[in-house]
Each structure stands twice: as C-alpha cells, then as structure tokens.
C-alpha cells in the first residue's frame, strides 16, 4: 500500500492540470519512489486515486523507459551509448563497467547494489562520454574517474 503521504502527494498533483489524468506521469514517479519500481499494485492504486481504468495507467507506464517495470539495484548505472558518447569511447566505458561489476548490460549484481543499462542520448554530448547513476550525471568519463565514482558509492 502507498503511504498516506504518497496518496496525498498524488491528489495534490492533480491541482496542476485541467484534467486529472495528466497526473498519471508524476504519480508513476511517486510509485517508483515508494516501491523502488513501478509495480502492478502501485499502478492500480494510481488508477483508483485518479478515477481511471487500470489500463490507462499500465499503458503509460509501459510506454516510457524511465519507469522501471522490475526492481533495479540500489545504484542504477545508465551509460549513454548514442553517437557523441560512442565517438569518444562509450563502448570502452561500458566494457569496463561490465567487467568491474561482473555483470552484463541489463543485469543486476547478486547483492542488488548495481544495475547496468545502456541508454540513448542524455543531453550531455559536450562532456562525453557520460553516465547517469540514479539522478546524477557523471561526465567526461575515464576509467580512473569511474573507479573514483564507484569507490564513493556506499
């Protein structure tokens, strides 16, 4: 069950829009924060609060890539593999991370600490190659810099 605070937050979100349904996207972020990912229970709760059919929430959740439909590690490492980052060695960055963490792309470490993903352009092309860990951007990456960053993660 969503916490009381989360339900209140979703209700308040509707005040931003002329139409309650518009609150689906921000509500899905609330669910993701609460459960760690977007699960069916959370989506049904959103439908209930916003007066929608569950499918109207499912269809949105499955369209957008930032809603994790299954649990991810504590640190979700997303490496940009689009053109500007690739020109400056994104594939080496990915290989290095994969080796360092002992997992392939799309996998999570057995201790549930890290998930490694390849993502499309994150709008950080002047500081390529780059990756995002949870909400934070890490730019101008080198192997040494990645080591530092990983060491800094608790």
């Amino acid at each position, binding site marked *: 069950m969503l916490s009381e605070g989360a339900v209140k937050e979703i209700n308040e979100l509707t005040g931003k829009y002329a139409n309650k*349904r518009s609150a689906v996207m921000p509500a899905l972020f609330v669910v993701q924060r609460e459960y760690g990912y977007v699960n069916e229970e959370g989506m049904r709760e959103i439908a209930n609060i916003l007066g929608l059919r569950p499918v109207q929430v499912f269809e949105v959740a499955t369209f957008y890539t930032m809603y994790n439909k299954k649990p991810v590690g504590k640190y979700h490492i997303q490496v940009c593999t689009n053109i500007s980052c690739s020109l400056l060695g994104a594939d080496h960055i990915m290989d290095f991370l994969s080796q360092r963490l002992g997992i392939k792309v799309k996998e999570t470490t057995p201790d549930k600490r890290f998930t490694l993903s390849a993502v499309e352009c994150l709008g950080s092309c002047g500081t390529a190659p780059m990756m995002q860990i949870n909400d934070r951007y890490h730019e101008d990456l080198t192997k040494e810099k990645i080591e530092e960053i990983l060491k800094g993660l608790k």
Partner: protein
Amino acid sequence: MFEPVILKNMNAPDSFKLTAYLNSGGYQALKKALEMNTDTIIQMVKDSGLRGRGGAGFSTGLKWSFIPKDPTIPKYLCCNADEGEPGTYKDRAIIEKDPHQLLEGIAIGCYAIGANNAYIYIRGEFTLGADRLEEAIREAHAKGYLGNNILGSKFSLNIYVHRGAGAYICGEETALLESLEGRRALPRIKPPFPAQVGLFGKPTVINNVETLACIPHIINRGAAWFAAIGPAKSPGPKLFGVSGHVNKPGLYELPMGTPLREIIYTHAGGIKGDRRLKAVIPGGVSAPMLTEKDLDTPMDFDSLAAKGTMLGSGAVVVMDEKTCIVKGALIVHEFFHHESCGKCTPCREGLDWIVKVMRRVEHGEGKEGDVEVLLKLCGDIFGRTFCPLGDGAVMALRGAINNFREEFEYHVKHKRCMVNSEQ
C-alpha cells in the same frame, strides 16, 4: 568577438538564482512588456525575425498570432524542454544555469497570447534542471514576477513543471501534448493545429527553450537589433553545441549564419590529434551529414536547407577520418528504432527492418543488394508518417549512404570495415 546574449549570465556565481538574474537586468523586459499592447509585442517578435530554435525554424511571432483573440477561451503555452535530439545539450544549459531567463520569456509569451497557465515539459532525466526550475518558479512567485496580478498589472500566470519519462517522441509537439494529458506520446494528426486545438483541446503555443530565452532580449533591445544579427531571413544569436572529435567540445553562442568551418576550427579548436574531418552532422542526428567540401556553409536555416540538410537544433557532431560511417549510422538508427512510438506502420516496421539490415552489414554478414534494400526502405517511410521521426531517420540514412556509399558496399563485400582493420 560576438557578445553573448543568451549565455551572458552563465558564468556568474549562482547564476540560477533570482538575485543573480536581477543583477544582470532580469525581469525588466517583463515589466516593459506588461505596459505594452499584446498585438505590439507579437508584431515586434514577428519583426525580429525570430525563428523556432527547436528545429523547425517557424516564425515565432507568426505562431503566436495564430492564437484566437477571444478572451473567454482558456489558452496555454507549453515550453518544449524535452531536449532529446542526440548531440543537443543547449536547452539544458539555459535551464540549469539561467532558469529565470526562460521564465521571463514564458511570461512575456503568455501575456502576448493571453495564456494564464504554462507548462514546461522537461525531459525526465534532467532532474537537476527540473529542481532548478521549481525553485526559480518559487522565487519568482515570492517576488511577484509570477502568480496573480504580476507587477501590479491585471495579468496573472502560473507556470508548472511537467517531467517526461524517457521518450524522444515527446519532443514532437503534438506527442508532447498527449504526454501532458497523461497518455502514451503518440503524435496527433494535423490539422487541427495546436493553435486551434492544443492542450486540453484549447489553443496552445509550443515553443522551444532557446526560442523563449530570446524573447526578453527582443523586448529590451528591440526587433531591429535582433534582426540585424546574422542573415536577414534567419537572424539572431544561436547556440551551437559541438561534440565528437574536436579539441574543445562545448556550447558556443554565435551569430546565426556563422560558417561551419569557423565553429569547428576556430571555436571548438579543430579536430583532435590533428586528424582530418570526415563528416559532420550540422543539426542533431536527423540532419543529413556534410563533408569537408561543405565547411563554408553558413549555419542558418536556409543555407543548410539549400545543402539538403538542416540546422535542426544546432547540434554539431564532428567525426574524424578514423570514424566508421556504417557503425555511426547503425548507432543512430538503433536510436530511431528504439524511439519510434509505434503509431504508424511505415516508421515502426520500416525502422525495424532497416536496423536488421544495418546490423548484418555492420557485423560482416551483409548480403549483396543490402544497400539497395536500405534505400528502398527509406522511400517506403519518407513522407508516409504522422510525424517527422521517420523522415528524420530516413534523411540521416540517405545522408550517410549518399556521402559514403563505398563504405557500406565495402562492408557487404569484404565482411569488414574500410577504416578500422580490427573490426
């Protein structure tokens, strides 16, 4: 040396805070605009020659003039901050470092078209940007630059931040509206255009971040000042985001029409390791690539269109002589394939087929005739879709094949790459 306009505050300490913005003369344009007639403002924006910086290059003043004048109909302004065209990172800089400049532009735009509610649709990954905008909105409300009866006038405005969740298609304006209404971001058929039937079915203007950031400067310094920068038909300051194989990648604000050569060799410091330039994408990956012979092309809407490509978002992606064009094209088309929303068959199925063929060509399993298959598929997609995503993918692929066909053929024939022997 060109004096920056949009980026002028970027290096000030705490440039994202209201105090920094006010110190640089911020919100004076809003004050001035609120004393002007709305038609005068729209005319001024038309006269400035400002064209949309999101890529389409449509006259901003003209777009605003399409909004019905009836004061009883609610109207909306949506700021398109879903910056997603690979190579592009200009709007993010404005949002993170000078959010009030954007808010002031939005406020003036809303006043001009009679909108009391505006949404900033920001791509979901820009968490820092979204936080900065929320904070800037709070600051502006507290000081009376937003909210009810702004600066003592009769004009009231609320600006809301709406976060996307990772879908390139939301940069297409009607898909953005669908997304804002809480649905899958499938583009709408036009007409009706958003100026008549937009957000929540009401008249809506959708403008890019950089476009709106130009507005306060036009109000402050006049239409003639703006129109005198760069080419007459495509004037103003422009942000060029340079990435790839250059010594100094970064964001450069220069007059529209600055030659591509000057951007790459003077501002971005030339090609890394003194290698030769092989190809350059002038306006984000949808824009067909150019080569060395095109380097003297002025970077503006019309000059690039005359070369068969486009200014797009002004994202300049530079590739040196060691770059495999087939691999580059595959990366770009994996992207388009991933981002196709699935609404129209030609784009959804066509791009799926294109990447399947391109993968086998890249990985040494190409078949004779594959290049022709790719070109045939391009023809099957182009002009047959609701939105420009499919067209962009086709233009990019045709640009790669037209300029470097021998590399594609080499991959097919020799099962390996022409430039990097290890591949």
